[in-house]
Structures are given as structure tokens and as C-alpha cells.
């Protein structure tokens, strides 16, 4: 099996400021984070950011997004992970997304991709694809999801960290 669940978090009552995964072993090839989050921001959505090893510097990226009416692209000095639902979004909706980080323990700059949607059973729902770079040669040993607007993640928000391991299967050759 190439995908291993490393850890899973479900937010309890009262909410949390961030979801943190620490002491990530360097034994996998890639990492993947899958989340469903609702934040306390008084809006239909909130932006979920990600940081590695507790650092918010040397981050950059480009996004491609659509909201049902128009598409746009931009460059940002932060790391988008996706959208969460905000407190005015349809009840019981959570923004869902996935972040994929290849070669996370290598001694090269860390590229990653993210995609997600801010769920809302009304207008103002959106879809995001993000291309990110953490320009650091440090191995990633921890990562955190947090609200760009510094709001709390609400109860029942979840995030799961997976390790993806390279390998080979008898019969398949590569040349």
C-alpha cells in the first residue's frame, strides 16, 4: 500500500486557531493533506493557508480560481491550501480541499499544489487551484492549516495527513 494515514484531527467544541501536524517522519516520498473546514469568519467563506515548520516566510504561489461568474489568476506571497466555509455559509457545509507536497524531505525547494472548494448552497461558492512554493531546503517536519483572517476553525472541521511512499511492483519496468 502506498498511502498511509499518518494522523487525523477532528476539531472539538470551542474550535481551534489552527490544525497542526508535528513530528512528521521523513520516511515517505510525498505528503497529502485532505481537509473539510468551517471557520468563524462572518462571511460565506474563508481562506485556509498552510505553513511548514512553523515558518510563514519564503512562500509564494499562483492561483487559478472561478466563482461561477468569472475566472481569475493572481500571485500571492502566502500558501493557499483552499477555502473553508464561513459562518454565513449554508449550515453544515465545510470547505473541502487537498494539498499535495512531493519530495517533502528532500534538500530542494518545496513545490506543492492545492485545490479545493468553498461549499455553499447558494451563490458565492468558488473553486481554487493553487501552485505553491516554499523556497527552503529544510525537510518538512511539521505543517499547519490556519485561517488567513485569524478566525477559529469550528467544531467538526477535520484534516487528515497521509504519507505516500514510492515503490515498485514486479512486472512494471521504467526506462
Amino acid at each position, binding site marked *: 500500500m*502506498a498511502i498511509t494515514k499518518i494522523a487525523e484531527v477532528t476539531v472539538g467544541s470551542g474550535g481551534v486557531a489552527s490544525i497542526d501536524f508535528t513530528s512528521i517522519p521523513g520516511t515517505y*516520498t510525498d505528503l497529502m493533506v485532505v481537509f473539510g473546514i468551517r471557520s468563524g469568519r462572518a462571511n460565506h467563506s474563508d481562506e485556509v493557508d498552510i505553513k511548514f515548520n512553523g515558518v510563514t516566510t519564503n512562500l509564494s504561489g499562483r492561483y487559478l480560481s472561478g466563482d461561477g461568474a468569472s475566472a481569475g489568476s493572481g500571485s500571492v506571497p502566502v500558501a493557499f491550501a483552499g477555502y473553508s466555509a464561513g459562518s454565513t455559509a449554508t449550515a453544515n457545509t465545510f470547505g473541502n480541499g487537498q494539498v499535495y507536497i*512531493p519530495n517533502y524531505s528532500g534538500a530542494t525547494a518545496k*513545490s506543492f499544489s492545492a485545490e479545493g472548494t468553498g461549499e455553499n448552497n447558494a451563490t458565492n461558492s468558488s473553486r481554487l487551484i493553487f501552485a505553491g512554493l516554499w523556497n527552503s531546503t529544510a525537510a518538512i517536519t511539521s505543517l499547519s492549516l490556519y485561517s488567513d483572517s485569524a478566525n477559529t476553525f469550528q467544531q467538526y472541521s477535520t484534516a487528515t495527513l497521509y504519507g505516500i511512499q514510492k515503490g515498485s*511492483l514486479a512486472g*512494471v519496468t521504467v526506462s
Partner: protein
Amino acid sequence: MASAQVALATTTLGSAASTVTFSSIPATYRDLRLVIQGSLSAGSNYFKLNFNGDGGANYNYVFMRGDGTSATSGSSSNDVSIYQTPSSIGSGVNTMITADIFDYGQTDKHKSTLTRSHSDGVYVWAIAGRWASTSAITSVAVAAYSGNLNSGTVISLYGIVSA
């Protein structure tokens, strides 16, 4: 998870190569997933994907692209490959590609692909491709349009098992 992802093969290029080919892929999975992280040599410009050694004009794709300022869309019909970075990128620009190849072992349908890719600081793409063939895919080739895949490029192939 509703599906399992099985590692089939991985290569890390120790020297530049024009093409990496995964061969003898068994038809025992539902889908395939290709993950690429690496870069191209000068003048190569594009990562591209071919199946079963078919270099004919049997590939079609449509893409949307963001460059940090605006979003655009384009397409190509009867092409000789499915471009995984369908815009010219510079040499040595770190690029990440995740391509899903659906129902690759089926012989009653053309083969569809969905790709998310980006080159750092240049573009981000989402690409939908089609190989106009009902043949089961038994080999997948990743190549540079011209020139080479740079040393250090990592390419992994996974099989996806239905739940």
C-alpha cells in the same frame, strides 16, 4: 479512503533523459496516477505524455491556465501528445505534475486524463486530455518536447484500486 493507491514504479533521473517510459503495466487497476516533479533542459519547453508508443495525431486536450495576472483557456486537437505543461516554460524551472489516467485497461472507450500542473512562478494549469484509442494502456511515456528531462527529475506511477 474510498480507493487504494499502489506504487508501481518510481525513477529519479541520475542524468538527463529525453523520455521515461513505464512498461508492462498490468490491467489490474482501475486508474493510473502519474506524479512528476522536475524540470526541463534549455529549449525543451513542454512536458508531454504518450501511451503505448503511439506518436500519431490521436491526442486531444483542453486546458485552463493562470499566470498570476489573468486566466485563459486553450485546446489542441489531433495532436501527437497530451501536453502536461501546455505553455512554454524556461529551462530548469521546477515543475510539478499530477495526472490521472482513467479506465486505462478498458477496451471499449477512449482514454481520458485529468492533470493539475504548475511551473514555479510561471503558470498553473488544469488540463483534460483524451487519447483516441480503445486499446488498453500498457505503457506510459513522459518526455520533453525537445531536449531533455533534467537530472534529478522524479517520476512515479501508481495504480488506483476501486473501492
